[in-house]
């Protein structure tokens, strides 16, 4: 874990977030916040994984961090929470797992001897399950703040916190 690798794991997710933010046509005022949240998301995932956490748990933690950050972002920049949350977590989309799953599935349809078949099937199952669970943990993680506070909008959550400090 060097300074350079930490920097890289903040820079690239942040750039990915901005790309998707523009694709989703977010308001101008939110772009800079999404850049920062993408970086924090990448950092959280990288550091937790460096400490030996599994990719599913690490993604879950990073998504929770993004979820909480998006509450205050929504309050300050006057946009719904998921305008910030969805572009920020997009860099954690399990692209590698899904790609390997797809390649494996294509291989499974071809003529394989039983040993090869078992090996490919093993890869497909493992990669496919990882992809599904990472996706699940991201979506659940992002909505954790809303689930815990039982409110649907950032303004209500902030109002709740202010009432009961």
């Amino acid at each position: 874990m060097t300074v350079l690798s930490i920097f890289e794991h903040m820079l690239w997710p942040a750039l990915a977030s901005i790309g998707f933010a523009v694709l989703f046509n977010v308001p101008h005022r939110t772009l800079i916040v999404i850049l920062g949240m993408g970086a924090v998301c990448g950092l959280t995932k990288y550091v937790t994984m460096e400490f030996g956490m599994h990719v599913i748990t690490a993604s879950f933690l990073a998504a929770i961090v993004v979820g909480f950050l998006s509450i205050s972002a929504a309050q300050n920049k006057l946009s719904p929470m998921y305008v910030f949350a969805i572009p920020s977590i997009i860099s954690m989309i399990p692209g590698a797992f899904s790609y390997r799953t797809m390649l494996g599935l294509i291989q499974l349809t071809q003529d394989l001897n039983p040993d090869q078949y078992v090996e490919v099937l093993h890869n497909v199952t493992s990669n496919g399950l990882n992809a599904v669970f990472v996706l699940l943990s991201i979506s659940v993680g992002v909505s954790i703040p809303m689930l815990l506070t039982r409110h649907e909008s950032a303004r209500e959550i902030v109002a709740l916190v202010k009432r009961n400090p």
Partner: protein
Amino acid sequence: MEKSIHKDQVERFGSILLEIGSLLMSYGANSMRIRVTLNRIAKAFGYNLELLITHRALMLHIDDKDDQHSFNQLKRTSPHGVNFRLVSGISNMSWRIVSEKWSLDEIEKEIERLKSLPHYPRIIILLLVSLADLSFCRLFGGGMIEMSIAFGATFVGLFVRQEAVKKTFNPYICIFFASLASSLISGLAVKFNLGDHPEYAFATSVLYLIPGVPLVNSFSDIIDGNIMNGIVRGMHGMVIVLSIALGLALSLLIYQI
């Protein structure tokens, strides 16, 4: 006489609510968000609102508190891309309707304004999304060569998709075209073995098509208990994933990788 004015008012208000709801549905809000926003506006005007939300149609019933007038209508929602600027604008509008006691005219004017808000310039979208895919490639572990290939493949693929959308092809076919175009370009790298891990460029060159919003909305709908909508959105996301995979598979077949 006064009664009929009031009836017109209810009908007009109902149509505005339906318009707002269908805009939210078309541009990527989840079901809970639609329900909350419409309820907030209806409450500000003192109406009771009952709502049936499905992926392609909205059904709405409003009545005023003393049950004098009611309004029922069904509206088709057309599928569009994601547009968070509009969704965010509508959310802000709903709060201001409550706090500033807007009239129906003001709401209609604001909806028109929000609908005419510009997108980012096309070249900016193309460049930034390509940059995002370059970043994905780097996160996978690709080097400079793979990153530039991913950049180029995304640029062309997204351009193809935008053109296909303009020509109003089926949305899934648009994604298939884009995936095919991107993977045909990045597949060249694999075919001619450019760089250390050309397959990284191949795998990441289609990631900009990933249905992030439908899948996240699908899970959040299911968690909120809108299970039908969640399943429909999930299925929509899965078909997009399938279209991407189909494009990739066709490139694999063409290049015999």
